[in-house]
């Protein structure tokens, strides 16, 4: 009997709302936009941070990446032609790190050199990455053709090179190119494989340099091209001696990453006079990104919450007007025998129906907007089921919170006074 009454109350509520279609619709708009903005903002925020997190995760949360940086120039010697600036990570650093920290699983040294290359009549400036077989385990690029560098290539000092797909395409290299010789800066390397380039769609920022990488055994690169680089700035030539450009340290477990990173930093710092390296710990970045995401969500959530609040106040305002307008109806219902709670129920059902319908339309809007953003702006967005449940729950709460006062006011009307109301 009670359930029947609730169902009929809902029917009655919907009917009353339909009597004033435009008014109900306008009242609902506040909740529609409130809920819509909650869902949309969370989707955009979630998408942006998921992208950032994915980029960081791809660097590997077990890894520590140490990169050589050019220290701040000191003295006037820089302009002298015979001056050579010596900086960066040393071959020796790699050995020291591997020996000093027991929890280090792999160390992958990287040497970078830009060299003009030729295959047939095609020319391309490649970034030659001198490294070791472990590199391919860390980076995990799928092989398109051939094979990657192996231990025996290092041992046999083999002049071999692995191209990335993108570079290969620019050189018009195909799987038939494997086994052919590629001329890199006056030296010949045998092409042994092609690996996939980092996916342009998944990664955000990508310099063209990374796309034209060519991997060769570290010791061969060192042997053939040496450690001395020259670079031109403002007309003068500067010579630099850099042994390693990057050192990737893989730590056995995630828990030890930060401690090992601090230890390496300390060790490297003591062994040099100036800071010529930079540590980057993806795990720390990940934590930072997650903290940023939380802040972001709180800020977006509060903005959306304010719009929901405004929507709720709109509902309350209209319901108060509706109570005044229907004072006589309330009086009639009370005279006939409606209890106070039944009047409360009647008006509360109306606000809840109003805000729930508004909430559902809002969810639709909130799904549509991120889809449009993705379509037109190319931004990654994620509509999470939680955000939908959250906002529908919030809209229901808005209905109850902002509906209860007008409803109680309606129920507290004196039936005698209400019946006399014109």
């Amino acid at each position, binding site marked *: *009997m*009670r359930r*029947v*009454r609730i169902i*009929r109350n809902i029917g009655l509520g919907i*009917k*009353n709302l339909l*009597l004033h279609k435009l008014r109900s619709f306008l009242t609902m708009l506040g909740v529609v936009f409130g809920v819509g903005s909650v869902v949309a903002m969370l989707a955009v925020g979630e998408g942006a941070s998921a992208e950032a997190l994915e980029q960081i995760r791809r660097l590997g949360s077990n890894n520590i990446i140490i990169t050589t940086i050019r220290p701040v120039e000191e003295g006037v010697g820089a302009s002298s032609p015979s001056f050579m600036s010596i900086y960066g990570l040393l071959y020796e650093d790699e050995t020291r790190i591997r020996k000093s920290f027991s929890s280090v699983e792999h160390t992958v040294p990287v040497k970078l050199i830009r060299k003009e290359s030729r295959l047939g009549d095609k020319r391309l400036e490649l970034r030659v990455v001198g490294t070791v077989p472990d590199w391919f385990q860390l980076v995990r690029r799928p092989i398109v053709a051939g094979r990657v560098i192996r231990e025996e290539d290092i041992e046999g000092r083999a002049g071999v090179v692995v191209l990335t797909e993108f570079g290969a395409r620019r050189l018009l290299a195909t799987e038939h190119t494997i086994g052919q010789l590629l001329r890199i800066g006056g030296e010949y390397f045998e092409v042994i494989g092609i690996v996939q380039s980092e996916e342009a769609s998944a990664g955000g920022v990508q310099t063209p340099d990374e796309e034209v990488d060519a991997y060769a055994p570290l010791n061969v690169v060192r042997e053939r091209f040496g450690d001395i680089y020259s670079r031109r700035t403002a007309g003068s030539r500067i010579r630099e001696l850099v042994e390693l450009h990057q050192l990737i340290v893989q730590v056995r477990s995630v828990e030890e990453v930060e401690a090992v990173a601090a230890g390496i930093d300390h060790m490297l710092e003591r062994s040099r006079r100036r800071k010529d390296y930079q540590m980057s710990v993806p795990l720390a970045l990940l934590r930072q990104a997650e903290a940023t995401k939380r802040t972001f969500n709180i800020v977006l959530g509060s903005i959306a919450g304010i719009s929901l609040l405004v929507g709720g106040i709109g509902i309350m305002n209209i319901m108060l007007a509706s109570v005044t307008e229907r004072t*006589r*109806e309330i*009086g*009639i*219902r*009370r*005279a*006939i*025998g*409606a*209890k*106070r*709670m*039944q009047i409360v129920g009647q008006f509360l059902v109306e606000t809840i129906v109003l805000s729930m319908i508004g909430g559902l339309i809002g969810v639709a809007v909130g799904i549509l907007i991120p889809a449009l953003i993705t379509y037109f702006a190319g931004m990654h967005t994620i509509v999470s089921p939680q955000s939908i449940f959250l906002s529908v729950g919030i809209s229901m709460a808005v209905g109850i919170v902002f509906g209860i006062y007008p409803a109680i006011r309606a129920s507290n009307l004196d*039936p*005698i006074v209400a*019946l006399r109301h014109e």
Partner: protein
Amino acid sequence: MTDTVPDIREKALSEPSCVAEFRDVTKVYHMGTQEVSALAGVSIAFERGSFWAIMGPSGSGKSTMLNLLGCLDRPSSGHYILEGGDVGQLDDDQLSEFRLRHLGFIFQSFNLIPQLTVQENIELPLFYLGYDAGRSAALAAELAERVDLGARLQHKPSELSGGQQQRVAIARALANDPPILLADEPTGNLDSATGTQIMHLLTELNEQGKTIIMVTHENEIAAYAGRRLHMRDGRIERIEGGDGCAG
């Protein structure tokens, strides 16, 4: 002998010949700091199946009396016994329950809910009584038939004449099958021909056993009632026609 007396009294309480009874009822309204006495000690009993007209100039207390009789208000002192229960002791929800079970209202301005159809208006008391839709619709149709509006069930009150609207209101007042009908100037907004129709309908209902208590200031209308209660300054001035039941 003495043992049987309480039995008789109990029987009298459960099946009283008086459907409603005022015992020294007063009603005082507070207007700011002033106290206005609307009823100054009224004692009267309404016999089951009687037809009363309450008359008197404005301010005589007849509206107050009707509000009290209708359980829309509680006496300031004294007792109002309705169907064996003391209304003064009831809380707001119980008052609602009493109105729902024992009373039907007929107003001067009909007081139909304009957004609802004739059927839905008649169904209102049934809604609060918890009838399911099927039973409720069937009963509403039956009641509409009884007031000759069987064909107008799906109309809105605004599409009906005044007399028709008042008949809908009477059908609604009958929906919960109350022993007492309270009418407040039921013909006040109607022309005399229509008013006569309404009065015939009320008389008919009275003959079928409903106790009717009607407030009016028109002698012609009051003439339909078997008893006439004249009020003045919150007191009963005189009663015309038959005696009230013992009380």
